[in-house]
């Protein structure tokens, strides 16, 4: 069994679902996600309001992130690439962290997800694609299934906690030691239900 390397995104202009490829990210390719490495990039290819500089990921140094992880076998970075060659989203994740809900078991930790700023409906009048973050999260759950973790995934939400609660992510007693942010986790039972609902299982 392999995990599908294609996901569905909704093309807002065409009004249809389209396929995007899951591609491995390199230190070279993620320069496009940073506001200060190459031009054009995610932050300049589409006109954005000044508030875009307040986005949580505006200052993320993706190159440093991938450099940090390059010799760690359990750490991966993938992007979603549409046929025009553009990256529509990125995911950095870790395979084999401890589960917070079931400490004797393993999980996948979603370190980062970012959708291209041009897909953020609160930044642009006409987003290009919808469903990028959801597709990356589905991929992380499928990866957890592949590694026999039952789909268990944990992550730190940035702000929209309600979104995760509605999707059965549970708050745990694990905190970021520096910020006090709460780790949320999708249990194996809820992950399996989610995969079945999506028709993946």
């Amino acid at each position, binding site marked *: 069994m392999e995990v599908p390397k294609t996901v569905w995104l909704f093309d807002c202009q065409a009004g249809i679902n389209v396929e995007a490829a899951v591609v491995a990210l390199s230190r070279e390719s993620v320069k496009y996600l940073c506001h200060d490495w190459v031009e054009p990039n995610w932050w300049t290819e589409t006109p954005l309001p000044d508030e875009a500089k307040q986005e949580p990921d505006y200052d993320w140094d993706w190159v440093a992130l991938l450099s940090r992880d390059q010799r760690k076998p359990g750490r991966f970075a993938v992007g979603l690439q549409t046929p025009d060659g553009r990256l529509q989203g990125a995911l950095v994740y870790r395979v084999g962290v401890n589960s917070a809900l079931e400490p004797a078991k393993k999980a996948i930790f979603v370190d980062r997800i970012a959708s291209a700023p041009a897909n953020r409906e609160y930044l642009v009048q006409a987003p290009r694609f919808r469903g990028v973050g959801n597709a990356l999260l589905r991929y992380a759950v499928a990866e957890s299934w592949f590694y*026999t973790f039952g789909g268990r995934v944990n992550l730190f939400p940035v702000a929209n906690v309600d979104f995760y609660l509605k999707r059965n992510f549970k708050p745990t007693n694990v905190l970021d030691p520096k910020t006090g942010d709460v780790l949320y986790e999708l249990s194996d039972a809820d992950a399996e239900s989610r995969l079945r609902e999506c028709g993946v299982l």
Partner: protein
Amino acid sequence: MAKSNRLSNDSISVVGGSDLPDAMDPTSSDDFNMPLGDLDRRLYLLMKLHPDIDLNFRLDDLSAMDDSTKQLLIGDIHSLLNVAPLKSTVL
């Protein structure tokens, strides 16, 4: 700099940026012997991380296998551990 919390209720635009406590994260060590190929790396992790797989495994064993043998081994491991295959080709 203060960062925006304006995220849509119906989408995931940004996740993360916080740190897992070290005690929860066995993935933090560098491994200079890690397989570089994608399939090798996945098989290596699958065998290394699952507590029910008691296999005396060497990296040399991987390099001696062709890809179809590696895929068969992955299939055997999933079958042994009752991991149902994913039936969709698009997520």
